[in-house]
């Protein structure tokens, strides 16, 4: 057996730390620190980090897009829960919108996941609980479930707090993914609308079926309603838009079913989802023209989409609502 300092050092170098005999814990720590000194690593200073990421401590990094994660945080912070399927679908929706340069063109985008009024109120683009962030205020008897929102044909609707005038918009686009309630004959039903009676009647709106199942309406100028019988009364994307100058359009899925000459006369009032948002004689906001229809997704923004964008948007929404089994 060899003895002496040199041989002892050689022996220690060839042995693992745990095998070094007859050393106190402090000596073992010092020995290890010596070995690691060239890398300036002091294990005692790193213990807190290990604890933070250890079992039961800290939050592991999210695999979701940061904007999707911010939305999930808002929903869950409000006391609601999301399934993994809902999270994955919403995350993919965010990625699809970003990949197709659609993320920044809208002001409000509502995925309606979580199944409750409180989870369906959040704006995916800006999940803050404020009117300025276009968080929805639900009015009347709107129903909420895993399929989205469903109107009651009496007084249901959602206030987006989006106003063309106060948004200083020069063009606009609104739309919804219709997925339920298409069996009843609609009577006076709006899908998206903003209405004021004074100083002159202004009824900016879209409707996939106002008083029958064949006539669709779009209007961005007072009461100069434009209508078409093109398209169908079926599930899918329904989108209306104005370029702010001379054209109003309607799209169903990714097909343009109507384009007509119309200058815009914007209503200086909020747009309502699944209704025509109005003021009563007491200046209380209410949801007029509530349909019985159901919706899986809705959006609004200062934009005028081209065919390429609408095709991509339609694909994203079909994929999203199909993943959630509510297409």
């Amino acid at each position, binding site marked *: 057996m060899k003895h002496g300092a040199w041989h002892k050092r050689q022996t220690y170098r060839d042995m693992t730390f745990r095998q070094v005999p007859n050393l106190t814990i402090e000596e073992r720590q010092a020995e290890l620190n010596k070995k690691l000194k060239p890398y300036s690593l002091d294990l005692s200073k790193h213990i807190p980090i290990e604890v933070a990421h250890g079992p039961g401590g800290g939050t592991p990094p999210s695999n979701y897009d940061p904007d999707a994660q911010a939305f999930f945080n808002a929903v869950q912070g409000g006391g609601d829960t999301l399934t993994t399927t809902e999270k994955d679908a919403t995350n993919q929706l965010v990625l699809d919108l970003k990949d197709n340069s659609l993320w920044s063109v809208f002001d409000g985008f509502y995925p309606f996941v979580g199944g409750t009024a409180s989870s369906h109120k959040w704006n995916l683009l800006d999940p803050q609980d404020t009117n300025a962030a276009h968080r929805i205020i639900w009015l009347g008897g709107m129903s909420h479930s895993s399929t989205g929102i469903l109107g009651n*044909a009496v007084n249901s609707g959602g206030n987006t707090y989006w106003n063309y005038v106060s948004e200083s918009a020069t063009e606009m686009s609104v739309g919804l993914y219709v997925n339920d309630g298409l069996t009843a004959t609609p009577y006076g039903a709006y899908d998206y609308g903003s209405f004021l009676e004074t100083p002159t009647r202004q009824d900016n709106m879209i409707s996939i079926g106002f008083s029958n199942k064949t006539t669709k309406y779009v*209007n961005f100028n007072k009461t100069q309603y434009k209508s078409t019988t093109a398209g169908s009364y079926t599930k899918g994307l329904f989108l209306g838009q104005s370029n702010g100058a001379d054209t109003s359009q309607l799209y169903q899925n990714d097909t343009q079913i109507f384009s007509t000459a119309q200058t815009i006369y914007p209503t200086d009032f909020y747009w309502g989802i699944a209704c025509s948002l109005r003021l009563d004689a007491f200046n209380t906001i209410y949801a007029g023209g509530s349909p019985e229809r159901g919706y899986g997704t809705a959006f609004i923004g200062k934009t005028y989409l081209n065919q390429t964008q609408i095709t991509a948007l339609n694909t994203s929404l079909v994929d999203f609502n199909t993943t959630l089994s509510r297409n």
Partner: protein
Amino acid sequence: MSHLVAIITEGQKDELVGQMWEKDSYFSPVLDCNDNWIISIEEIDGNTNPNFPWLSTLPLIDFCKKPEPGPGI
């Protein structure tokens, strides 16, 4: 298709406006075809607001929609 609603007084309407019937859902009384204030069965059956126990005692009737301005009207 009929929709059930309940008639409320103007005083009750004033009580309900601005109040939630469930988290993030607000009562929204509207006028029916006879100019009665009504609220929907969804608000009544779904109400979790303890300030309005009288809601569950309201008789239900079929909703008669008040004609509102819109295309063709």
